[in-house]
Protein backbone atom coordinates (compact mmCIF):
# COMPACT_ATOMS: atom_id res chain seq x y z
CA UNK A 1 0.00 0.00 0.00
CA UNK A 2 2.54 2.55 1.13
CA UNK A 3 5.02 1.24 -1.41
CA UNK A 4 2.74 2.24 -4.27
CA UNK A 5 2.27 5.63 -2.66
CA UNK A 6 6.01 6.13 -2.34
CA UNK A 7 6.46 5.12 -5.98
CA UNK A 8 3.80 7.51 -7.21
CA UNK A 9 5.07 10.28 -4.96
CA UNK A 10 8.66 9.73 -5.97
CA UNK A 11 7.86 9.85 -9.68
CA UNK A 12 5.68 12.89 -9.23
CA UNK A 13 8.24 14.79 -7.18
CA UNK A 14 11.10 13.88 -9.50
CA UNK A 15 9.16 14.97 -12.52
CA UNK A 16 8.23 18.25 -10.85
CA UNK A 17 11.76 18.92 -9.64
CA UNK A 18 13.35 18.16 -12.98
CA UNK A 19 10.70 20.22 -14.76
CA UNK A 20 11.47 23.19 -12.58
CA UNK A 21 15.17 23.01 -13.34
CA UNK A 22 15.16 22.37 -17.10
CA UNK A 23 16.12 25.15 -19.47
CA UNK A 24 13.82 24.21 -22.31
CA UNK A 25 10.34 25.38 -21.44
CA UNK A 26 8.63 22.90 -23.73
CA UNK A 27 10.38 20.06 -21.93
CA UNK A 28 9.51 21.63 -18.61
CA UNK A 29 5.86 21.88 -19.53
CA UNK A 30 5.73 18.30 -20.78
CA UNK A 31 7.40 17.01 -17.64
CA UNK A 32 5.04 19.02 -15.50
CA UNK A 33 2.18 17.36 -17.29
CA UNK A 34 3.78 14.10 -16.21
CA UNK A 35 3.80 15.38 -12.66
CA UNK A 36 0.14 16.32 -12.89
CA UNK A 37 -0.57 12.84 -14.17
CA UNK A 38 1.24 11.60 -11.07
CA UNK A 39 -1.10 13.65 -8.91
CA UNK A 40 -4.04 12.09 -10.68
CA UNK A 41 -2.58 8.64 -10.00
CA UNK A 42 -2.43 9.65 -6.37
CA UNK A 43 -6.13 10.49 -6.48
CA UNK A 44 -6.85 7.15 -8.10
CA UNK A 45 -4.84 5.43 -5.43
CA UNK A 46 -6.78 7.29 -2.76
CA UNK A 47 -10.07 6.16 -4.30
CA UNK A 48 -11.17 9.54 -5.63
CA UNK A 49 -11.81 8.26 -9.13
CA UNK A 50 -13.83 11.24 -10.29
CA UNK A 51 -11.30 13.78 -9.10
CA UNK A 52 -8.53 11.82 -10.78
CA UNK A 53 -10.20 11.88 -14.18
CA UNK A 54 -11.25 15.47 -13.71
CA UNK A 55 -7.62 16.27 -12.96
CA UNK A 56 -6.48 14.59 -16.16
CA UNK A 57 -9.20 16.29 -18.20
CA UNK A 58 -8.54 19.73 -16.81
CA UNK A 59 -4.78 19.70 -16.40
CA UNK A 60 -3.61 17.41 -19.15
CA UNK A 61 -6.41 18.27 -21.53
CA UNK A 62 -6.90 21.97 -20.97
CA UNK A 63 -4.30 23.71 -18.83
CA UNK A 64 -1.37 22.05 -20.57
CA UNK A 65 -2.77 23.05 -23.96
CA UNK A 66 -3.13 26.63 -22.84
CA UNK A 67 0.40 26.56 -21.47
CA UNK A 68 1.85 25.17 -24.69
CA UNK A 69 -0.07 27.71 -26.73
CA UNK A 70 1.15 30.48 -24.47
CA UNK A 71 4.73 29.30 -24.83
CA UNK A 72 4.46 29.22 -28.59
CA UNK A 73 2.77 32.62 -28.73
CA UNK A 74 5.40 34.35 -26.63
CA UNK A 75 8.51 33.65 -28.65
CA UNK A 76 10.01 35.12 -31.71
CA UNK A 77 12.06 32.18 -32.84
CA UNK A 78 12.66 28.64 -31.83
CA UNK A 79 15.58 29.38 -29.59
CA UNK A 80 13.42 31.52 -27.32
CA UNK A 81 12.05 28.48 -25.59
CA UNK A 82 15.48 27.80 -24.14
CA UNK A 83 15.76 30.37 -21.40
CA UNK A 84 19.01 31.71 -20.06
CA UNK A 85 20.29 30.19 -16.81
CA UNK A 86 19.25 32.02 -13.70
CA UNK A 87 21.67 33.87 -11.51
CA UNK A 88 23.26 31.80 -8.83
CA UNK A 89 22.19 34.07 -5.96
CA UNK A 90 18.57 33.84 -6.92
CA UNK A 91 18.72 30.06 -7.21
CA UNK A 92 20.40 29.77 -3.85
CA UNK A 93 18.00 32.11 -2.13
CA UNK A 94 15.05 30.28 -3.68
CA UNK A 95 16.41 26.97 -2.48
CA UNK A 96 17.00 28.37 0.99
CA UNK A 97 13.50 29.76 1.27
CA UNK A 98 11.92 26.66 -0.25
CA UNK A 99 14.00 24.40 1.94
CA UNK A 100 13.03 26.21 5.08
CA UNK A 101 9.35 26.09 4.17
CA UNK A 102 9.73 22.40 3.36
CA UNK A 103 11.43 21.74 6.67
CA UNK A 104 8.75 23.61 8.51
CA UNK A 105 5.90 21.83 6.76
CA UNK A 106 7.39 18.37 7.07
CA UNK A 107 8.23 18.82 10.73
CA UNK A 108 4.74 20.16 11.35
CA UNK A 109 3.23 17.15 9.60
CA UNK A 110 5.38 14.70 11.48
CA UNK A 111 5.02 16.46 14.79
CA UNK A 112 1.25 16.74 14.80
CA UNK A 113 -0.79 13.84 16.13
CA UNK A 114 -3.37 13.49 13.36
CA UNK A 115 -6.68 11.81 14.00
CA UNK A 116 -7.25 9.08 11.45
CA UNK A 117 -10.52 7.49 10.54
CA UNK A 118 -11.40 3.93 9.57
CA UNK A 119 -8.90 2.14 7.41
CA UNK A 120 -11.19 0.98 4.60
CA UNK A 121 -11.62 3.14 1.52
CA UNK A 122 -14.67 5.36 1.82
CA UNK A 123 -17.15 4.62 -0.94
CA UNK A 124 -18.13 7.65 -2.92
CA UNK A 125 -19.80 6.85 -6.24
CA UNK A 126 -20.10 9.36 -9.01
CA UNK A 127 -23.82 9.33 -8.41
CA UNK A 128 -23.36 10.41 -4.79
CA UNK A 129 -21.10 13.18 -5.95
CA UNK A 130 -23.64 14.29 -8.53
CA UNK A 131 -26.42 14.31 -5.95
CA UNK A 132 -24.27 16.42 -3.67
CA UNK A 133 -23.34 18.84 -6.43
CA UNK A 134 -26.88 19.22 -7.67
CA UNK A 135 -28.40 19.40 -4.22
CA UNK A 136 -26.76 20.90 -1.14
CA UNK A 137 -23.70 22.15 -3.01
CA UNK A 138 -25.57 23.58 -5.97
CA UNK A 139 -24.67 27.13 -4.99
CA UNK A 140 -20.98 26.25 -5.13
CA UNK A 141 -21.41 24.61 -8.50
CA UNK A 142 -23.18 27.66 -9.86
CA UNK A 143 -20.53 29.99 -8.53
CA UNK A 144 -17.79 27.82 -10.03
CA UNK A 145 -19.63 28.00 -13.34
CA UNK A 146 -19.87 31.76 -13.14
CA UNK A 147 -16.18 32.03 -12.26
CA UNK A 148 -15.24 29.87 -15.23
CA UNK A 149 -17.40 31.91 -17.58
CA UNK A 150 -16.02 35.18 -16.31
CA UNK A 151 -12.48 33.84 -16.53
CA UNK A 152 -13.11 32.70 -20.09
CA UNK A 153 -14.40 36.12 -21.11
CA UNK A 154 -11.62 37.86 -19.21
CA UNK A 155 -8.97 35.72 -20.84
CA UNK A 156 -10.39 36.45 -24.27
CA UNK A 157 -10.47 40.18 -23.58
CA UNK A 158 -6.93 40.16 -22.24
CA UNK A 159 -5.41 38.09 -24.97
CA UNK A 160 -7.37 39.49 -27.92
CA UNK A 161 -5.41 41.92 -30.03
CA UNK A 162 -6.83 45.38 -30.34
CA UNK A 163 -6.71 45.55 -34.10
CA UNK A 164 -6.49 49.36 -34.22
CA UNK A 165 -3.62 49.47 -31.79
CA UNK A 166 -1.81 46.66 -33.50
CA UNK A 167 -1.86 48.49 -36.79
CA UNK A 168 -0.45 51.63 -35.23
CA UNK A 169 2.59 49.92 -33.71
Amino acid at each position, binding site marked *: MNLILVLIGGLMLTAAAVAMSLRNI*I*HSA*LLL*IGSWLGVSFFYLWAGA*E*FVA*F*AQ*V*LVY*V*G*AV*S*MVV*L*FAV*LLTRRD*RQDVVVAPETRTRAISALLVGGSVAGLLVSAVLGTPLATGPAETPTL*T*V*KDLGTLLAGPQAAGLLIAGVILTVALLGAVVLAATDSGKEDAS
Partner: protein
Amino acid sequence: MTATLERLPLLVRDWITGFFPEPVRWLVSGLLAIVAILAVFGLYFAYLTLAERKFLGRFQNRPGPNRTGPFGLLQPFADAVKALTKEDIVPQAADKLLHFLAPCLVVAFGLISFAVIPFGRYLIPVDLDAAVLYFFAAGVSSELALFMAGWASHNKYSMISAMRALAQLISYELPLLLAVVPVIMLSGTLSTSKIVVAQGGWTFGIIPHWNVLTPWGFAGFFIFMIAAVAETNRSPFDLPEAESELIAGHLTEYSGFKYALFFMAEYFGMSALCGLGVTLFLGGWQAPIDILQVVPSYVWFMVKLSCVIFCLMWVRATLLRLRIDQLTRLAWKFLVPLGLINLGNAAFWHLSADWSGPLQIVRWAISAAVIVIPFVLIGRTLSSGLAPRTYRYAT
Protein backbone atom coordinates in the same frame (compact mmCIF):
# COMPACT_ATOMS: atom_id res chain seq x y z
CA MET B 1 -25.43 -23.29 -26.29
CA THR B 2 -25.98 -19.56 -26.49
CA ALA B 3 -24.95 -19.14 -22.90
CA THR B 4 -21.75 -21.07 -23.52
CA LEU B 5 -20.91 -19.01 -26.56
CA GLU B 6 -21.65 -15.88 -24.60
CA ARG B 7 -19.30 -16.93 -21.85
CA LEU B 8 -16.67 -18.36 -24.20
CA PRO B 9 -14.06 -15.65 -23.60
CA LEU B 10 -14.51 -16.02 -19.85
CA LEU B 11 -14.09 -19.79 -20.09
CA VAL B 12 -10.90 -19.38 -22.08
CA ARG B 13 -9.61 -16.90 -19.52
CA ASP B 14 -10.41 -19.18 -16.63
CA TRP B 15 -8.77 -22.08 -18.38
CA ILE B 16 -5.55 -20.15 -18.91
CA THR B 17 -5.44 -18.60 -15.45
CA GLY B 18 -5.97 -22.05 -14.06
CA PHE B 19 -2.33 -22.82 -14.87
CA PHE B 20 -1.12 -20.13 -12.49
CA PRO B 21 -1.10 -20.06 -8.68
CA GLU B 22 -3.89 -18.15 -6.97
CA PRO B 23 -1.96 -15.01 -5.85
CA VAL B 24 -0.96 -13.94 -9.37
CA ARG B 25 -4.20 -14.82 -11.14
CA TRP B 26 -5.54 -11.26 -11.11
CA LEU B 27 -2.33 -10.13 -12.77
CA VAL B 28 -2.53 -12.84 -15.39
CA SER B 29 -6.16 -12.11 -16.18
CA GLY B 30 -5.35 -8.42 -16.53
CA LEU B 31 -2.49 -9.21 -18.87
CA LEU B 32 -4.74 -11.53 -20.81
CA ALA B 33 -7.22 -8.75 -21.36
CA ILE B 34 -4.44 -6.51 -22.65
CA VAL B 35 -3.11 -9.20 -24.91
CA ALA B 36 -6.59 -9.96 -26.20
CA ILE B 37 -7.29 -6.32 -27.02
CA LEU B 38 -3.90 -5.95 -28.67
CA ALA B 39 -4.40 -9.07 -30.75
CA VAL B 40 -8.01 -8.46 -31.73
CA PHE B 41 -7.68 -4.80 -32.46
CA GLY B 42 -4.25 -5.23 -34.02
CA LEU B 43 -5.79 -7.61 -36.50
CA TYR B 44 -8.88 -5.42 -36.78
CA PHE B 45 -6.61 -2.47 -37.55
CA ALA B 46 -4.76 -4.43 -40.20
CA TYR B 47 -7.92 -5.40 -42.01
CA LEU B 48 -9.48 -1.99 -41.46
CA THR B 49 -6.69 -0.46 -43.53
CA LEU B 50 -7.28 -3.02 -46.23
CA ALA B 51 -11.05 -2.50 -46.07
CA GLU B 52 -10.61 1.25 -46.29
CA ARG B 53 -8.40 0.97 -49.32
CA LYS B 54 -10.77 -1.49 -50.94
CA PHE B 55 -13.81 0.64 -50.24
CA LEU B 56 -12.13 3.83 -51.37
CA GLY B 57 -11.11 2.00 -54.49
CA ARG B 58 -14.64 0.91 -55.20
CA PHE B 59 -15.96 4.41 -54.46
CA GLN B 60 -13.47 5.78 -56.96
CA ASN B 61 -14.14 3.16 -59.57
CA ARG B 62 -10.92 1.20 -59.25
CA PRO B 63 -10.27 -2.25 -57.80
CA GLY B 64 -8.06 -1.35 -54.82
CA PRO B 65 -5.23 -3.63 -53.62
CA ASN B 66 -5.72 -7.09 -55.09
CA ARG B 67 -2.26 -8.46 -55.77
CA THR B 68 -1.01 -9.77 -52.44
CA GLY B 69 -2.73 -13.00 -51.63
CA PRO B 70 -6.29 -13.83 -52.61
CA PHE B 71 -8.28 -10.59 -53.08
CA GLY B 72 -5.27 -8.77 -51.64
CA LEU B 73 -5.95 -10.24 -48.22
CA LEU B 74 -2.27 -10.40 -47.32
CA GLN B 75 -1.70 -6.76 -48.17
CA PRO B 76 -1.63 -5.53 -44.51
CA PHE B 77 1.20 -7.94 -43.70
CA ALA B 78 3.15 -6.84 -46.70
CA ASP B 79 2.68 -3.25 -45.56
CA ALA B 80 3.84 -4.13 -42.08
CA VAL B 81 6.97 -5.79 -43.37
CA LYS B 82 7.68 -2.82 -45.57
CA ALA B 83 7.25 -0.35 -42.72
CA LEU B 84 9.47 -2.38 -40.42
CA THR B 85 12.31 -2.73 -42.88
CA LYS B 86 12.36 0.89 -44.01
CA GLU B 87 15.06 3.21 -42.72
CA ASP B 88 14.09 5.18 -39.63
CA ILE B 89 15.09 8.77 -40.43
CA VAL B 90 15.40 11.30 -37.62
CA PRO B 91 16.05 14.90 -38.69
CA GLN B 92 19.31 16.47 -37.56
CA ALA B 93 17.69 19.35 -35.71
CA ALA B 94 14.88 17.31 -34.18
CA ASP B 95 14.21 17.09 -30.51
CA LYS B 96 15.34 13.46 -30.50
CA LEU B 97 13.70 12.29 -27.30
CA LEU B 98 10.31 13.80 -28.05
CA HIS B 99 10.57 12.66 -31.65
CA PHE B 100 10.86 9.12 -30.41
CA LEU B 101 8.31 9.42 -27.61
CA ALA B 102 5.51 10.94 -29.67
CA PRO B 103 4.54 7.87 -31.74
CA CYS B 104 4.82 5.57 -28.74
CA LEU B 105 2.61 7.77 -26.60
CA VAL B 106 0.06 8.30 -29.32
CA VAL B 107 -0.43 4.56 -29.66
CA ALA B 108 -0.43 4.02 -25.92
CA PHE B 109 -3.07 6.67 -25.31
CA GLY B 110 -5.10 5.33 -28.20
CA LEU B 111 -5.04 1.87 -26.64
CA ILE B 112 -5.89 2.72 -23.04
CA SER B 113 -9.26 4.08 -24.16
CA PHE B 114 -10.33 0.52 -24.93
CA ALA B 115 -10.16 -0.36 -21.24
CA VAL B 116 -13.67 0.86 -20.46
CA ILE B 117 -15.55 -0.21 -23.57
CA PRO B 118 -17.96 -3.09 -22.94
CA PHE B 119 -17.33 -5.40 -25.90
CA GLY B 120 -19.86 -7.92 -24.71
CA ARG B 121 -22.15 -8.82 -21.88
CA TYR B 122 -19.26 -10.12 -19.79
CA LEU B 123 -16.45 -8.51 -21.71
CA ILE B 124 -15.40 -5.23 -20.23
CA PRO B 125 -11.71 -4.92 -19.33
CA VAL B 126 -12.25 -2.50 -16.42
CA ASP B 127 -15.74 -1.71 -15.17
CA LEU B 128 -15.11 1.78 -13.81
CA ASP B 129 -17.73 3.86 -12.09
CA ALA B 130 -16.59 6.96 -13.99
CA ALA B 131 -15.83 5.16 -17.23
CA VAL B 132 -17.02 7.86 -19.64
CA LEU B 133 -14.90 10.43 -17.85
CA TYR B 134 -11.93 8.06 -18.03
CA PHE B 135 -12.45 7.65 -21.75
CA PHE B 136 -12.28 11.38 -22.34
CA ALA B 137 -9.37 11.80 -19.98
CA ALA B 138 -7.48 9.21 -22.03
CA GLY B 139 -8.64 10.87 -25.23
CA VAL B 140 -7.33 14.31 -24.37
CA SER B 141 -3.95 12.86 -23.50
CA SER B 142 -3.36 11.83 -27.08
CA GLU B 143 -3.55 15.50 -28.09
CA LEU B 144 -0.31 15.96 -26.22
CA ALA B 145 1.39 13.30 -28.30
CA LEU B 146 0.32 15.09 -31.47
CA PHE B 147 1.80 18.30 -30.18
CA MET B 148 5.02 16.52 -29.30
CA ALA B 149 5.28 15.08 -32.79
CA GLY B 150 4.79 18.49 -34.35
CA TRP B 151 7.20 20.22 -32.06
CA ALA B 152 9.91 17.61 -32.12
CA SER B 153 10.10 17.48 -35.92
CA HIS B 154 11.58 20.98 -36.02
CA ASN B 155 9.73 21.75 -39.19
CA LYS B 156 7.42 24.67 -39.90
CA TYR B 157 4.75 22.54 -41.53
CA SER B 158 4.75 20.09 -38.67
CA MET B 159 4.49 22.88 -36.14
CA ILE B 160 1.59 24.55 -37.95
CA SER B 161 -0.18 21.26 -38.26
CA ALA B 162 0.32 20.56 -34.57
CA MET B 163 -1.20 23.90 -33.68
CA ARG B 164 -4.08 23.26 -36.04
CA ALA B 165 -4.58 19.85 -34.58
CA LEU B 166 -4.72 21.28 -31.08
CA ALA B 167 -7.17 24.00 -32.05
CA GLN B 168 -9.35 21.48 -33.81
CA LEU B 169 -9.27 18.95 -31.01
CA ILE B 170 -10.09 21.53 -28.38
CA SER B 171 -12.91 22.94 -30.50
CA TYR B 172 -14.48 19.57 -31.07
CA GLU B 173 -13.98 18.36 -27.52
CA LEU B 174 -16.92 20.55 -26.56
CA PRO B 175 -19.62 19.22 -28.93
CA LEU B 176 -18.37 15.71 -28.26
CA LEU B 177 -18.90 16.11 -24.53
CA LEU B 178 -22.17 17.98 -25.02
CA ALA B 179 -23.45 15.11 -27.12
CA VAL B 180 -22.51 12.62 -24.43
CA VAL B 181 -23.96 14.46 -21.44
CA PRO B 182 -27.63 13.78 -22.37
CA VAL B 183 -26.92 10.05 -22.35
CA ILE B 184 -25.37 10.34 -18.92
CA MET B 185 -28.30 12.43 -17.71
CA LEU B 186 -30.89 10.00 -18.95
CA SER B 187 -29.20 6.82 -17.78
CA GLY B 188 -28.03 8.39 -14.54
CA THR B 189 -24.59 6.86 -14.60
CA LEU B 190 -21.11 7.38 -15.98
CA SER B 191 -20.44 3.67 -16.19
CA THR B 192 -20.42 2.38 -19.76
CA SER B 193 -21.63 -1.09 -18.78
CA LYS B 194 -24.65 0.36 -16.97
CA ILE B 195 -25.40 2.67 -19.89
CA VAL B 196 -25.58 -0.34 -22.18
CA VAL B 197 -27.78 -2.23 -19.74
CA ALA B 198 -30.08 0.79 -19.55
CA GLN B 199 -30.65 0.47 -23.29
CA GLY B 200 -31.84 -3.12 -23.03
CA GLY B 201 -35.33 -4.30 -23.87
CA TRP B 202 -37.54 -4.18 -26.92
CA THR B 203 -40.96 -2.78 -27.72
CA PHE B 204 -43.05 -5.50 -29.43
CA GLY B 205 -39.83 -7.50 -29.52
CA ILE B 206 -38.54 -5.65 -32.58
CA ILE B 207 -37.94 -2.02 -31.64
CA PRO B 208 -34.88 -1.79 -29.41
CA HIS B 209 -34.67 0.85 -26.69
CA TRP B 210 -31.45 2.34 -28.00
CA ASN B 211 -30.74 5.96 -27.29
CA VAL B 212 -30.39 6.74 -30.96
CA LEU B 213 -34.07 5.97 -31.44
CA THR B 214 -35.16 8.99 -29.41
CA PRO B 215 -35.13 12.57 -30.74
CA TRP B 216 -32.39 13.74 -28.38
CA GLY B 217 -30.41 10.54 -28.90
CA PHE B 218 -30.64 10.87 -32.64
CA ALA B 219 -29.40 14.44 -32.54
CA GLY B 220 -26.78 13.51 -29.96
CA PHE B 221 -25.52 10.62 -32.08
CA PHE B 222 -25.05 12.83 -35.09
CA ILE B 223 -23.30 15.55 -33.15
CA PHE B 224 -21.17 12.86 -31.55
CA MET B 225 -20.21 11.26 -34.84
CA ILE B 226 -19.38 14.57 -36.54
CA ALA B 227 -17.23 15.54 -33.59
CA ALA B 228 -15.70 12.06 -33.53
CA VAL B 229 -14.63 12.38 -37.16
CA ALA B 230 -12.99 15.68 -36.29
CA GLU B 231 -11.38 14.25 -33.17
CA THR B 232 -9.74 11.49 -35.14
CA ASN B 233 -8.51 13.92 -37.82
CA ARG B 234 -10.25 12.06 -40.59
CA SER B 235 -11.53 13.47 -43.81
CA PRO B 236 -13.37 15.85 -44.21
CA PHE B 237 -11.73 17.24 -41.08
CA ASP B 238 -8.19 16.06 -41.83
CA LEU B 239 -6.71 19.55 -41.95
CA PRO B 240 -3.77 18.86 -39.66
CA GLU B 241 -2.40 16.35 -42.12
CA ALA B 242 -3.64 17.96 -45.30
CA GLU B 243 -1.26 16.69 -47.98
CA SER B 244 -1.84 19.54 -50.37
CA GLU B 245 -1.03 22.36 -47.94
CA LEU B 246 0.98 20.85 -45.10
CA ILE B 247 2.64 17.88 -46.79
CA ALA B 248 1.10 15.45 -44.30
CA GLY B 249 1.56 17.78 -41.33
CA HIS B 250 3.03 16.32 -38.21
CA LEU B 251 3.81 13.12 -40.08
CA THR B 252 6.21 14.85 -42.47
CA GLU B 253 9.37 13.96 -40.58
CA TYR B 254 8.37 10.44 -39.70
CA SER B 255 9.20 7.39 -41.69
CA GLY B 256 9.20 3.66 -41.42
CA PHE B 257 7.72 2.08 -38.38
CA LYS B 258 7.11 5.33 -36.50
CA TYR B 259 4.95 6.46 -39.37
CA ALA B 260 3.08 3.19 -39.21
CA LEU B 261 2.54 3.75 -35.48
CA PHE B 262 0.80 7.05 -36.14
CA PHE B 263 -1.32 5.34 -38.70
CA MET B 264 -2.17 2.64 -36.21
CA ALA B 265 -3.04 5.21 -33.55
CA GLU B 266 -5.43 6.92 -35.90
CA TYR B 267 -7.29 3.69 -36.48
CA PHE B 268 -7.20 2.79 -32.79
CA GLY B 269 -8.61 6.19 -31.92
CA MET B 270 -11.30 5.84 -34.52
CA SER B 271 -12.25 2.37 -33.35
CA ALA B 272 -12.34 3.50 -29.73
CA LEU B 273 -14.47 6.56 -30.42
CA CYS B 274 -16.84 4.61 -32.64
CA GLY B 275 -16.95 1.96 -29.96
CA LEU B 276 -17.97 4.59 -27.44
CA GLY B 277 -20.57 5.88 -29.88
CA VAL B 278 -21.95 2.36 -30.28
CA THR B 279 -21.96 1.95 -26.51
CA LEU B 280 -23.68 5.24 -25.76
CA PHE B 281 -26.17 5.48 -28.58
CA LEU B 282 -26.50 2.21 -30.46
CA GLY B 283 -27.14 -0.05 -27.53
CA GLY B 284 -23.61 -1.44 -27.23
CA TRP B 285 -23.70 -5.21 -27.33
CA GLN B 286 -27.51 -5.43 -27.28
CA ALA B 287 -29.07 -7.34 -30.14
CA PRO B 288 -31.34 -5.29 -32.42
CA ILE B 289 -34.23 -7.75 -32.27
CA ASP B 290 -35.32 -9.86 -29.36
CA ILE B 291 -34.99 -13.23 -31.09
CA LEU B 292 -31.52 -12.41 -32.40
CA GLN B 293 -30.17 -12.68 -28.87
CA VAL B 294 -28.96 -16.15 -29.76
CA VAL B 295 -26.00 -14.50 -31.43
CA PRO B 296 -23.35 -13.71 -28.79
CA SER B 297 -23.23 -10.10 -27.63
CA TYR B 298 -19.61 -9.46 -28.63
CA VAL B 299 -20.48 -10.35 -32.21
CA TRP B 300 -23.18 -7.71 -32.17
CA PHE B 301 -20.77 -5.16 -30.83
CA MET B 302 -18.23 -5.85 -33.55
CA VAL B 303 -20.94 -5.79 -36.23
CA LYS B 304 -22.22 -2.41 -35.10
CA LEU B 305 -18.69 -1.07 -34.78
CA SER B 306 -17.86 -2.17 -38.30
CA CYS B 307 -21.04 -0.59 -39.65
CA VAL B 308 -20.26 2.74 -38.02
CA ILE B 309 -16.69 2.64 -39.28
CA PHE B 310 -17.93 1.81 -42.75
CA CYS B 311 -20.08 4.94 -42.61
CA LEU B 312 -16.99 6.97 -41.72
CA MET B 313 -15.17 5.53 -44.75
CA TRP B 314 -18.15 6.41 -46.86
CA VAL B 315 -18.03 9.99 -45.55
CA ARG B 316 -14.33 10.12 -46.28
CA ALA B 317 -14.89 9.02 -49.84
CA THR B 318 -17.72 11.46 -50.39
CA LEU B 319 -17.00 14.80 -48.75
CA LEU B 320 -14.40 17.43 -49.52
CA ARG B 321 -11.99 18.79 -46.95
CA LEU B 322 -13.11 21.91 -45.06
CA ARG B 323 -11.15 25.11 -44.62
CA ILE B 324 -9.90 25.86 -41.10
CA ASP B 325 -12.38 28.73 -40.60
CA GLN B 326 -15.26 26.61 -41.82
CA LEU B 327 -14.13 23.89 -39.48
CA THR B 328 -14.09 26.01 -36.34
CA ARG B 329 -17.27 27.80 -37.38
CA LEU B 330 -19.06 24.50 -37.70
CA ALA B 331 -18.00 23.59 -34.19
CA TRP B 332 -18.68 26.82 -32.36
CA LYS B 333 -21.65 28.21 -34.22
CA PHE B 334 -23.49 25.06 -35.14
CA LEU B 335 -22.60 22.01 -33.11
CA VAL B 336 -22.17 23.67 -29.73
CA PRO B 337 -25.51 25.54 -29.80
CA LEU B 338 -27.26 22.43 -31.05
CA GLY B 339 -25.59 20.40 -28.34
CA LEU B 340 -26.73 22.84 -25.68
CA ILE B 341 -30.28 22.81 -27.01
CA ASN B 342 -30.15 19.04 -27.08
CA LEU B 343 -29.12 19.09 -23.44
CA GLY B 344 -32.31 20.98 -22.63
CA ASN B 345 -34.20 18.57 -24.83
CA ALA B 346 -32.86 15.63 -22.85
CA ALA B 347 -33.84 17.36 -19.63
CA PHE B 348 -37.35 17.72 -21.00
CA TRP B 349 -37.35 14.05 -21.95
CA HIS B 350 -36.30 13.13 -18.46
CA LEU B 351 -38.99 15.29 -16.85
CA SER B 352 -41.70 13.98 -19.13
CA ALA B 353 -40.82 10.35 -18.49
CA ASP B 354 -44.19 9.62 -16.89
CA TRP B 355 -46.33 10.98 -19.73
CA SER B 356 -48.45 8.25 -21.18
CA GLY B 357 -51.16 7.66 -23.72
CA PRO B 358 -51.68 10.54 -26.16
CA LEU B 359 -49.23 12.63 -24.14
CA GLN B 360 -46.56 10.24 -25.37
CA ILE B 361 -47.11 11.60 -28.86
CA VAL B 362 -47.01 15.18 -27.58
CA ARG B 363 -43.74 14.34 -25.85
CA TRP B 364 -42.23 13.03 -29.06
CA ALA B 365 -43.52 15.97 -31.06
CA ILE B 366 -42.15 18.56 -28.65
CA SER B 367 -38.82 16.83 -28.36
CA ALA B 368 -38.48 16.49 -32.11
CA ALA B 369 -39.51 20.09 -32.67
CA VAL B 370 -37.02 21.35 -30.11
CA ILE B 371 -34.23 19.79 -32.10
CA VAL B 372 -35.46 20.22 -35.66
CA ILE B 373 -36.46 23.88 -35.47
CA PRO B 374 -33.09 25.15 -34.17
CA PHE B 375 -31.35 22.85 -36.64
CA VAL B 376 -33.16 24.48 -39.54
CA LEU B 377 -32.98 28.01 -38.18
CA ILE B 378 -29.29 27.95 -37.20
CA GLY B 379 -28.44 26.23 -40.44
CA ARG B 380 -30.28 28.81 -42.47
CA THR B 381 -28.79 31.70 -40.55
CA LEU B 382 -25.28 30.37 -40.97
CA SER B 383 -25.67 29.68 -44.66
CA SER B 384 -27.55 32.88 -45.48
CA GLY B 385 -25.50 35.19 -47.63
CA LEU B 386 -23.44 32.36 -49.02
CA ALA B 387 -23.91 31.88 -52.71
CA PRO B 388 -24.42 28.30 -53.78
CA ARG B 389 -21.09 26.85 -54.73
CA THR B 390 -20.49 26.27 -58.40
CA TYR B 391 -18.05 23.73 -59.72
CA ARG B 392 -16.39 23.91 -63.06
CA TYR B 393 -15.38 20.66 -64.62
CA ALA B 394 -12.87 20.16 -67.33
CA THR B 395 -14.69 19.61 -70.58
